[in-house]
């Protein structure tokens, strides 16, 4: 599965606008669904590699050390290479205690300016370092650790690692069933909203009505209306409205909501 839908969405000049809009709707929802499926598919590969590594160390009866994580590089790079400069970074974040020699560690690599090159994300000297904020309380780590399920965080300002407006895909690693302990960490990937937008906007712009891609809370990822720009919240009758103190806000948009497969992202095409 690839995320290059251009061939299937080529617009026929003679088509009525509504027809083109309909095609654009399925192009966007299909593309988002594919991206989410692909990224979690690649993360699943990384997860297997982490689990195999942990198992082999257990069988040998030796401690798992930070340097052992070097063998994960090919799987991490496979995630980062996905979609041609779409993924900003990826890696494995062990739960505190999983590594013997480091309590807190991010085995995280980010793409660099040169094509095909990656560099390690070093955050220990940044004011946003892990000394500054305990990452275990952040949603991209905490949610999959707690629920045992894959999770997409954001869009949010990732002030701990990259300072970018991002979506972070994470899934828990291990333990083998019935071990009575929590997961051993999470594997994950970052996609910047600014890298996602150029892939979606052409399809959104082709629609007759303003359209927005939003997350499950109604947070706008990409939009073609200045009334609801990236990062703002929409309240739509079909979305779980985020609760602010006191009242649940009344819907502020009306339009058709299209789900993107099982992904926690939806396309809203405005109109009554």
């Amino acid at each position, binding site marked *: 599965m690839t995320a290059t839908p251009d061939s299937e969405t080529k617009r026929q000049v003679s088509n009525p606008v509504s027809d083109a809009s309909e095609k654009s709707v399925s192009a966007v929802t299909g593309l988002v669904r594919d991206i989410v499926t692909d990224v979690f598919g690649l993360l699943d590969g990384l997860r297997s590699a982490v689990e195999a590594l942990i198992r082999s160390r257990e069988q040998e009866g030796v401690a798992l050390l930070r340097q052992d994580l070097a063998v994960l590089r090919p799987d991490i790079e496979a995630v980062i290479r996905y979609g041609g400069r779409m993924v900003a970074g990826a890696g494995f974040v062990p739960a505190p205690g999983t590594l013997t020699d480091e309590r807190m560690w991010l085995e995280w690599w980010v793409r660099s300016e040169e094509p095909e090159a990656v560099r390690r994300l*070093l955050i*220990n*000297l940044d*004011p*946003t*370092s892990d*000394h*500054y*904020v305990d990452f275990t*309380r952040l*949603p991209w780590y905490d949610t999959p650790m707690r629920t045992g399920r894959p999770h997409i965080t954001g*869009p*949010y*300002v990732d*002030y701990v690692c990259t*300072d*970018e*407006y991002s979506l972070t895909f994470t899934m828990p690693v291990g333990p083998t069933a019935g071990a009575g302990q929590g997961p051993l960490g999470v594997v994950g990937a970052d996609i910047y909203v600014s890298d996602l937008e150029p892939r979606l906007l052409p399809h959104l712009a082709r629609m007759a009505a303003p359209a927005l891609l939003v997350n499950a*809370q109604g*947070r706008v990822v990409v939009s073609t209306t200045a009334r609801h720009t*990236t*990062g*703002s*919240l929409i309240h739509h009758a079909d979305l779980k409205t*985020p*609760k*602010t*103190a*006191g009242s649940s*806000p009344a819907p502020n948009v009306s339009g058709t909501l299209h789900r993107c497969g099982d992904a926690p992202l939806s396309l809203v095409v405005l109109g009554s």
Partner: protein
Amino acid sequence: MRQRLLSGGARVALFAPLESLGRAELVLRRLTDVIALGLLVDGEQLPAESELATQFGVSPVTVREALTILRQQKLVTTRRGRGGGSFVCAVQDMPGAILRRRLEALTLGQIRDMADHYAAIAGSAARLAAQRAAEENLQGLQEAIKELAEAPDAVSRRRADGLFHIEVAAAAQSARLTREELKLQTEVGALLWLTTDGADAGQHVVEEHRGIAAAIASADADRARELAEAHITKAMDRLWQLRLELVRPEPGQG
């Protein structure tokens, strides 16, 4: 028609030096800040010189130069041989002395300018946060407030205070405002705490943070902005006053 030209003052601002400090000095300042802010803890090992050079995007010589000064200031110690390297030595009252020196280097006019800048950033961030914050963001704010209320020492107080403001900017969903807030934190965040020593240190700050968080939670954008601006202005006024006192003779002596 002739285009309107910028006034003299505005032109000066346009062509202000891009980076007034040397590279070694920038590295030095960053490391000093990080240690003074308590982001690197006592005894923590710094990355190797070559790694620091790559990370900062400077030459190893520049890093070595900065480390030499840090050693002279007794902010790091270097051990040779196996398991050696540079280690942070954070002495409890040491950051105060450094910060005082930093404050002395600022003019009252610069502090006023900084106050305006900071109030603009914090006010806008709070206004947007009130419009855009979701449950997750509100939780982040509450956690930062709790951390400040329970902070056991000066270093954790500074850290928790900074965290609150960064959480507000993150709740605004703005990467740029968040980066500005981080920069301001490094520049003045620690200085502000020079004015808040003492037993009940930080209690009024906690109260003000609670007020801002409540305005954000009730989606009251105007009030959130007003409270955030007042919060910063008050803190910067105290800093301005402290700076003024540095040149004033002791009371009763003049």
